[in-house]
């Protein structure tokens, strides 16, 4: 199996098949990443697709000595930021806080689903009220299950910064959940 970097190098020469393979490999994680950042399924779908189109168009600028994932993640994060800014201008709000459909209750424990549903609805709302940077770090650690080293590599920041960003983001998230509960 070709590496991601090798595929991007093929894409540089205009190879759409290589792009297709890269898409199959990363489409779900791209969608989930964008979903965590923008909190809306349709937008996340569009952003993830646009990210692959950007990969195709910007493959020429890709530095093959660098890993693929942080580069790709930067594309998704930049697109998500732009998307939110446009949406905020269009709708005069960052995200649709009434849209509680992007986070679902994990129904592996059927007895607790009803209680969990209420909690998850509050979590949903609180997450959408966080700043982009806070939601980003929460998404990566809590919902993508990434280790601190992986997050540090992805965002290009020291591990200590990952820890302190997580601390502050969690404090804000906990406070928002309390406020939404009141």
């Amino acid at each position, binding site marked *: 199996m070709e590496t991601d970097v090798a595929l991007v190098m093929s894409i540089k020469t205009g190879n*759409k098949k290589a*792009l*297709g393979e890269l*898409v*199959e490999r990363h*489409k*779900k994680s791209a*969608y*989930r990443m964008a*979903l*965590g950042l923008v909190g809306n*399924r349709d937008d996340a*779908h569009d952003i993830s*697709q646009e990210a*692959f*189109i950007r990969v*195709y168009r910007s493959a020429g600028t890709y530095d093959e000595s660098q890993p693929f994932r942080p580069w790709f993640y930067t594309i998704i994060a930049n697109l998500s*930021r732009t998307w*939110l*800014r446009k949406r*905020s201008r269009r709708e005069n709000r*960052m995200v649709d806080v009434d849209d509680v*459909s*992007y*986070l*679902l*209750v*994990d129904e592996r424990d059927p007895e*607790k689903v009803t209680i*969990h549903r209420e*909690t*998850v609805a509050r*979590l*949903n709302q609180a997450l959408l*009220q*966080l*700043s*982009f940077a806070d939601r980003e770090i*929460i998404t990566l*650690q*809590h*919902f993508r299950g990434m*280790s*601190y080293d992986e997050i540090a590599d992805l965002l290009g920041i020291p591990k*200590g910064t990952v*820890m*302190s960003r*997580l*601390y*502050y983001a*969690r*404090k804000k*998230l*906990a406070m928002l*959940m309390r406020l939404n509960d009141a």
Partner: protein
Amino acid sequence: MRKNNRELLAGYVDGELTEQERRDFEVELAGNPELRSELAEFERLKEVTGMAKYADLPDEVWESYWQSIYRKLERGIGWILFSIGAIVLLGFGLYEGLSGLYLDPAQPLWLKVGVTAFGGGLVFLLVSYARERLFAYKRDRYKEVTK
């Protein structure tokens, strides 16, 4: 709370501390009620986020995902070619039309003045609009606010 404790607290909740860091942090924890309360809060948060998962897309969306990207790419190439063609044709048309108009002494002066005013007005309006947008963007206090 010292900064170090904040970082260690996050790492403790996520099981990211070394054995030594964990032991040191637990000693600190035993004598620090504020830290214990924050730990309980973070553990609860971890539990809550563990109850949730991202909503997935229907299978048919995933099946047509690549085709959809491929179509967008093709359309993009189509639009680029179309735009280049349109610019070339429009430029040629304008050049032919305007040079024919201005260089032909048989054309009345009022027509030349009218066309000049129309073109000049259009450029003036476009520049004014672009300047207004730029001015509004520079003064937008919330442009960096994502929330």
